[in-house]
């Protein structure tokens, strides 16, 4: 599902955010990525989404090579990914429902199906009652849940959630983590970055990865 071999990510300004990363993640894994601020968690997810390209080494996601010349195919690859961005990227001037529908608009859903599935997704994140609210009138935590609904409605093969609990109270954080980890099945892998180590300690069957200074300093767990 994900294969990273000796990947280094250096940004345009010369900052090296990831150094010599090696990582293999199979189908149906639940992966928690932790590490201090600025350690490279978001950078790793950017690499996996093809937003950045490895300056060295090789990155394969769902069989797709991440490289500049693969732009078009990377765009298609993203349709199989459910991204939850650290800054949510919800679109202002639109309702919660419209934002969630944005996740599947170009995937050939009929308008009816699109609406009912979006309402479903909102229900799963506990926001169905706010479906007609403009996102600028929602709280941060609520926006984050809209972003999560937009990711899960696509039933993607890979969920990449960047700090999905960052703005949530304990109860909500726990239920969102439960929701995301429940999406893991034979075909779906879930990658979650988080600072909230106390919430994930008790997770069984999960892979725990710790990044520090752009390097993987610890990797443990997994179903095997």
């Amino acid at each position, binding site marked *: 599902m994900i294969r990273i071999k000796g990947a280094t990510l250096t940004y345009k300004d010369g900052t090296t955010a990831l150094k010599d990363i090696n990582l293999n993640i199979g189908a149906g894994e639940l992966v928690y990525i932790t590490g201090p601020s600025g350690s490279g968690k978001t950078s790793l997810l950017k690499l996996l989404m093809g937003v950045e390209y490895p300056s060295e080494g090789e990155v394969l996601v769902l069989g797709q090579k991440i490289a500049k010349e693969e732009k078009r195919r990377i765009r298609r690859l993203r349709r199989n990914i459910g991204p939850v961005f650290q800054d949510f*990227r919800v679109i202002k001037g639109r309702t919660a429902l419209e934002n969630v529908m944005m996740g599947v608009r170009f995937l050939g859903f009929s308008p009816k199906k699109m609406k009912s599935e979006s309402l479903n997704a909102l229900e799963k994140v506990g926001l169905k009652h706010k479906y007609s609210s403009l996102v600028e009138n929602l709280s941060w935590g609520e926006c984050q849940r809209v972003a999560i609904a937009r990711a899960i409605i696509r039933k993607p093969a890979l969920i990449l959630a960047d700090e999905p609990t960052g703005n949530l109270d304990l109860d909500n954080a726990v239920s969102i983590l439960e929701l995301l980890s429940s999406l893991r099945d034979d075909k779906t892998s879930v990658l979650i970055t988080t600072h909230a180590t106390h919430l994930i300690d008790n997770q069984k069957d999960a892979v725990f990865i710790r990044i520090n200074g752009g390097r993987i300093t610890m990797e443990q767990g997994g179903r095997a």
Partner: protein
Amino acid sequence: MKSVLFNMGYFLKEAYKTIRLNLLSNIFSFIGTVLILFIFALVITGWNVSNRLVLMLKEEAEISAYYEENLDEIDKDNLIGLIEEIDGVLEVNLVSQAEAYNRMENVLGNEAGILELFEENPFEEYIEIRIHLDETERVIDRIENIEGIEYVRDNREILNRIEGIVKTLNMAGYIVTAAVGITTIIIISHMIRQGIYENRFQINTLQLLGASNSFIGFPFLIAGLLMILCGGIIASVLTVIAINIGFGQLSGTIPFIPLPPKNELVKHVVVIIMTASIILGSGGSIFGLSSIKEDAER
């Protein structure tokens, strides 16, 4: 394809939003488009009228042959017979002195009074010959050599001058057409560029979600086409009004100008304006859409 059909409502709403977002600037662009298309329509109308005029003048190419005074009726008949046989001659008529007088009276209109200053009819009898314009030189040559013909008068000079004017008009027409095309494309593509710029966050998010650039660009294409089609329609309405006014004025002041049938002219101009709108609108939109950047804001 399915995505396009399922999302038509969304695309239209997005297009409307794009137009609304920069309402004032878009209104100015719209007014500009209307004016440009209107000017274009006027040029096409002028073109149409002048071309028709030339065509008619060419069809009317005729020469007058004057013969020696001592000829009797039989000689004249023979002469007419000889001329009729020449290749390129369409019609031959004998114009009597009285008729020549009448025609001049008609041409002078209100000024016809001066003819009364003459004690007797100052016009000569002559043979009027309608000919094929392309054969002018040869026909004139032949007629001049017929015995009994004194001299031949033709309107080649006038025709040449009119053709010169028409050439200049055509040239101006081409320049205006090119200017209209370029300006319209610039206005429309700029409008779309601006919309894309204002929507860059949304566009980038859609890219991150895996939407294709054609899906992302479609609402902008609709917005551009909508603007220019409405512009074309308004310009057409203005043109129809202008043609109506123009026809009224012209036929009042210069009654013998050969104007084309009004309905045909209107149809012709409207078809051209709307076609040009669609072509220029698509061109401008596609130009504008090229400003969608790959993963612009990463």
